[in-house]
């Protein structure tokens, strides 16, 4: 695929097509505030490298777009954190109001800021980010018809990819090790069981509304404990989901809600999940150009204990975003997710600023407050700070 891309690149550079790249490479310094909980874990603070460049080729008419976005993390200390992925490698044709696409990519339907409730196309890359916000590229074929404010689309997802989980030596891992090599599938086709999705979306008068359908292999595993050791085996059932996502912008206020109903396993057992939130923006405070946003969100999920895994069964999120009007694009973001039942809280704070035209420095602190037991125990113990020096291509 990559050599094909390289050849196409060279051929098309001369034919009026636009060949370009964007994305970043970064060095991450990471320091943990406590000793690792499990004996096998590497203790340490480390410096690792991460790259996510995007190469693309667009025809002069802008009808044809070929994109390749590989991802690579190299961590010399924590070897199991070193991993790579193809986040995107696809061809998209836009013909009038029609769009045809095939390859691998990432698709998101969420409107909430703290936790995405309805997203179901892609798998989570837990090795890259324990918060669940990094996703793996999903092979797909897609047809969309997008007249005016409307969008209708159907997708076929021919193969299932497992989420990644940190290994035995890795920090920010779960209490139990997930044995992905022994994964169980409900159907005989295993990971070759195809999945399908459809979506209708419209925007009108301050509203952005989407209705989604999904049928196929569950993106979240049930974790089955093994008698012989501390490992758990992930099991991926068939799942059918209908979801709705809505955001409504009225002046400085944004109201957001998203939710789904899901039938899972052969018995078609039901559970639902939903989240709602409000974002209030203070624009241009006292004529200074400073913007401040306050966010509050709540998530609820009715799934039983034996259903696939979620960390957000009854949680609240509070966040704030402060942006300065300087040429460095300085911004501060703080968010906290609290489990309403036992008040354990995960806090992430981040500050960043651009230097010159290509560099951005990001400082991030991740802290956990409350009980540090259960499946997330290992995760919740690993308070850490990160300094990232990113070079944007």
């Amino acid at each position, binding site marked *: 695929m990559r050599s094909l891309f390289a050849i196409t690149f060279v051929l098309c550079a001369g034919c009026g097509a636009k060949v370009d790249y964007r994305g970043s490479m970064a060095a991450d310094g990471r320091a943990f505030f406590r000793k690792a909980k499990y004996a096998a874990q590497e203790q340490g603070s480390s410096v690792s490298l991460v790259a996510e460049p995007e190469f693309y080729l667009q025809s002069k008419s802008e009808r044809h777009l070929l994109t390749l976005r590989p991802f690579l993390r190299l961590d010399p200390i924590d070897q199991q954190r070193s991993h790579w992925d193809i986040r995107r490698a696809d061809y998209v044709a836009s013909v*009038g109001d029609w769009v045809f696409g095939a390859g691998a990519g990432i698709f998101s339907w969420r409107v909430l800021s703290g936790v995405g409730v309805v997203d179901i196309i892609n798998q989570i890359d837990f090795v890259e980010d324990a918060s669940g916000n990094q996703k793996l590229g999903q092979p797909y074929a897609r047809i969309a018809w997008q007249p005016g404010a409307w969008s209708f689309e159907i997708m076929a997802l021919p193969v299932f990819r497992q989420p990644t989980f940190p290994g035995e030596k890795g920090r920010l891992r779960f209490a139990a090790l997930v044995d992905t090599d022994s994964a169980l599938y409900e159907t005989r086709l295993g990971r070759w069981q195809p999945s399908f999705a459809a979506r209708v979306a419209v925007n009108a008068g301050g509203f952005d509304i989407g209705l989604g359908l999904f049928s196929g292999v569950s993106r979240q595993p049930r974790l089955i404990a093994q008698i012989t050791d501390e490992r758990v085996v992930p099991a991926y059932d068939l799942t059918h989901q209908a979801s709705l996502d809505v955001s409504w912008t009225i002046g400085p206020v944004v109201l957001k809600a998203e939710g789904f109903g899901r039938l899972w396993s052969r018995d078609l057992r039901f559970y639902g999940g939903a989240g709602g939130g409000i974002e209030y923006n203070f624009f241009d405070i006292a004529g200074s150009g400073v913007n401040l946003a306050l966010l509050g969100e709540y998530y609820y999920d009715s799934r039983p204990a034996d259903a696939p895994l979620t960390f957000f069964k009854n949680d609240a999120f509070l966040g704030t975003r402060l942006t300065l009007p300087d040429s460095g694009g300085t911004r501060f973001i703080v968010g906290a997710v609290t489990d309403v039942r036992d008040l354990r809280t995960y806090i992430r704070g981040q500050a960043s600023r651009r230097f010159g035209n290509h560099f951005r420095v990001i400082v991030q602190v991740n802290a956990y407050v409350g009980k540090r037991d259960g499946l997330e125990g290992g995760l919740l113990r690993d308070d850490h700070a990160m300094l990232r020096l990113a070079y944007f291509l």
Partner: protein
Amino acid sequence: MKIRSKLVLYSILAATLTLAIAAERVSRAASPSGADIARKAAAQLSGYGDQQASLKMILKNAHGNVATRAIRFRTLEDKGGQSYALIIFDSPADVKGTALLTHDKRGGDDDQWLYLPALRRVRRISSSNRTGRFVGSEFSYEDLSGYDAADYHWKRLADRGGHYVIEARPKRSGSGYSRRVLLVSKKGYRIEQITFFDRKNARVKTLSYSRFSRPDGKHERALRWTMVNHESGKSTVLEFSNFRFNQGLTVSQFSKSRLRRLR
């Protein structure tokens, strides 16, 4: 980066529609009123069909430090009088691919969406940040929006050499300015300078248009806009290049779902 609300983009529009409007017929009276002059000046900037250009934004602070941004813009007028605008950032590198889409609805609130490649999400932009600064520049979103001549009370203040001096006072609240004073050439009705007065009626900023040119031999555009903030000493220069008209852009190229596919 803060590209919020009403933003934007219209950088062009500003350039273009600056005053908005529909090319209404203006009375041929020997001595035109302020509103007549405003409408004629606006008519010079509309009626283009579609247009696109590249622009360099140069930010200078009071110490002379300079930062630059590279931007592309495209606009389209449809037959119903609605206009569409798109701006795409090429630099700084961390915001490359950031795109702002505006559907300018005459007589109503605009719809605006921002696509951030780093988050891979499209966000609707609130229309209540008109007075905020656009990407750290001396232009507010309000300065860059297309404005409708019908939204202002116009007054002809004086004639100065080959120019009319006219004043615009907003009819509606929500503007950061109490009034603007425009210098419009008698020949060709081109806007050459706008002075902005804050709500306390103090002169805060001056925008000068220069390097007038007809890139296609027909439509006249100012290729250089200089905004000086008299209070902070900072300035922002916009330099336009590669203007192209009527390249066959269509409304579907300005749809929200298209934002992710822009390059």
